[in-house]
């Protein structure tokens, strides 16, 4: 994927020079290993800072919300699905966008890699499906396939579903993937075990809301946790309030979540809150045959009323 950078710069420079877009939203090289920073380029000469590698896990659809400019946006598979959702939900117009699609080969899991080393990681590079990690006293070569972000390892939509330009040839989609093995394990638990599991899952939460704010779906002008009249949820790290926040947020994402992993990636204390959204994603798939963000022609199942709905309770 490293070779994508040149093509991204070339396309971006052209779009800016032609005046087709006012800005291109992409990533620039971060100041830490395994971190890149979302950024914009407004002048053709700014495209030199744009980069692409396996550390672009933040979802750039999140940076489009309610913008007024004409925008070129770099979009891997999940970003493109959230762009579709954004368009359906009127958070951006299709004709404002030039989508520069990036056929994705997965992002690497910086927490997993960090936990594999005793000492601080000083640099990480990639080459031909390998990840080369250097610490102060050692160098190790890892197989990228083995250190993918958890959501990328089970991703079946690596190619952008909507695009105007492509940064590379489309990649082969992963096949025969068991997407929900982890969810089935939790589903099989007794109520008591589930309770303990969720207690433990969310115990480290500091209520910073990085998960919510990294999520392209969470664009409410005032989130329910920030409402004060009435105040729905307490402000402390009381376990009940913390769980209320996570559970309710997950429900708000039902049928809209693309499992892009931005929430888990953003969490400063490493909580896998994707467990919650993924369960709902699984239900939407199993009950309604629905995967979010694949088409501009249908609204998410929990967002649509159909007179011929087969369920009686809704009539």
């Amino acid at each position, binding site marked *: 994927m490293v070779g994508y950078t040149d093509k991204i710069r070339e396309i971006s420079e052209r779009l800016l020079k032609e005046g087709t877009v006012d800005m291109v939203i992409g990533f620039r090289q971060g100041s830490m290993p395994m971190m890149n920073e979302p950024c914009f380029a407004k002048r053709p000469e700014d495209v030199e800072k744009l980069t692409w590698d396996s550390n672009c896990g933040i979802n750039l659809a999140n940076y489009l919300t309610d913008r007024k400019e004409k925008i070129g946006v770099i979009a891997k598979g999940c970003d493109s699905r959230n762009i579709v959702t954004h368009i359906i939900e009127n958070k951006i117009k299709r004709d404002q966008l030039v989508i520069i699609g990036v056929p994705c080969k997965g992002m690497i899991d910086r927490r997993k890699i960090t936990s594999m080393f005793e000492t*601080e990681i000083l640099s990480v590079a990639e080459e031909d499906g390998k990840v080369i990690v250097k610490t102060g006293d050692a160098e190790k070569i890892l197989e990228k396939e083995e250190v993918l972000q958890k959501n990328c390892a089970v991703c079946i939509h690596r190619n952008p579903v909507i695009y105007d330009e492509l940064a590379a040839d489309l990649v082969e989609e992963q096949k025969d993937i068991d997407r929900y093995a982890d969810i089935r394990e939790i589903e099989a638990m007794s109520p008591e075990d589930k309770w303990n599991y969720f207690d433990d899952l969310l115990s480290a939460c*500091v209520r*910073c809301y*990085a998960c919510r704010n*990294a999520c392209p779906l969470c664009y409410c002008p005032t989130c329910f946790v920030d409402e004060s009249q009435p105040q729905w949820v307490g402000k402390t790290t009381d376990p009940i309030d913390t769980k209320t926040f996570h559970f309710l947020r997950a429900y708000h994402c039902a049928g809209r979540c693309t499992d892009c992993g931005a929430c888990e990636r953003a969490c400063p204390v490493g909580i896998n809150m994707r467990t919650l959204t993924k369960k709902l994603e699984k239900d939407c798939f199993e009950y309604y045959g629905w995967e979010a963000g694949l088409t501009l022609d249908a609204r998410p199942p929990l967002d649509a009323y159909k007179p011929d709905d087969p369920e009686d309770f809704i009539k």
Partner: protein
Amino acid sequence: MKVIKIDKKDWADGLAKLSGGYRLFGPVKDKEFHNFKELDNGELPDFDFSNTKLSAKSMVFPQAEAMFKYSLDENEADHHIMKEAEKDYSPRAAIGIRPCDAAAFLLVKKNFDTPEYKDPYWINAYEASVFVGLACNNPCSTCFCTSAGCGPFHEDGLDVLLADAGDYFLAKVITDKGEKLLQAAGWNTEADAGEDQIETLKKEAEAKITASVNTDGLKDKITTELYDAPFWEDVAFACLNCGTCTYVCPTCWCFDIQDETHGTSGIRMKTWDSCMYPLFTLHGSGHNPRGTKVHRVRQRFMHKLKYYVDKYGDGIQCVGCGRCIRLCPVNIDIRKVCELMNSYEPADAACQVA
């Protein structure tokens, strides 16, 4: 100054003695990372860490702290009257706080303990505390303490400085409070040439610091020019406006006051707040003077690197622990922002604007 040698085999016994007279706090590994918290009975602090995920500020300034309690039950004589919440200000000791976190308390003190205003909750907790610091023999690549008025063996804010010397700790006595604690633990063997040993370790540690910031130009910059600098849109673009940087920061001191009522009884609490949140500045009228994320990101950096510098005249409101750099989900790096601010020349920048 006196340096005591503490054999590591005497460590647990000494802490057990201390636990009779002090509530002990220290770094503890919880799942994947270390946090600073009150130790359970018999629990030992775990020194196999670079730094704790969150700073140690919660020892004195908890994320949520009850100030008052009240009853709404009109059958009770004192209903609707705020009463002091019970507090435990018995002596407490931080065992293994990093020097940067201890130095941060001195910065925060300027806010909570002034001639005009005194925050009794912060002051009482701070004064009840003894800080036994653990010097950093191996600082991280993101530590820029030595250029932020601090350092891996920095002593300001500590009562005792511990240095790990292999089989034993060297404990440098900095205050009377610290001396008293060491005596209570039964650690009283003076080290041979202790100060020299510490000095050697200190030099080695300082030589390992690779990151730095320049702050010499901040004071002379014109506030309104920095405020209007063209780089803020670029700096703030990636920001998610989550509260991570402020929550993990040892020097971020802002708090909110919240009432929580359950049935007819309730508490009034002090809770951490963050200038990254829109709610932080939302007025009752609905107006928000910091209505965009550019406003909010600028505020955080201007506060730490300009307003504080001008108001207190003792450097930046940062000890260089690097937590905000390591934990920012989108890699906004205070070192880069500090450099932009420190080297900003309005005339030059004006030429660069498209």
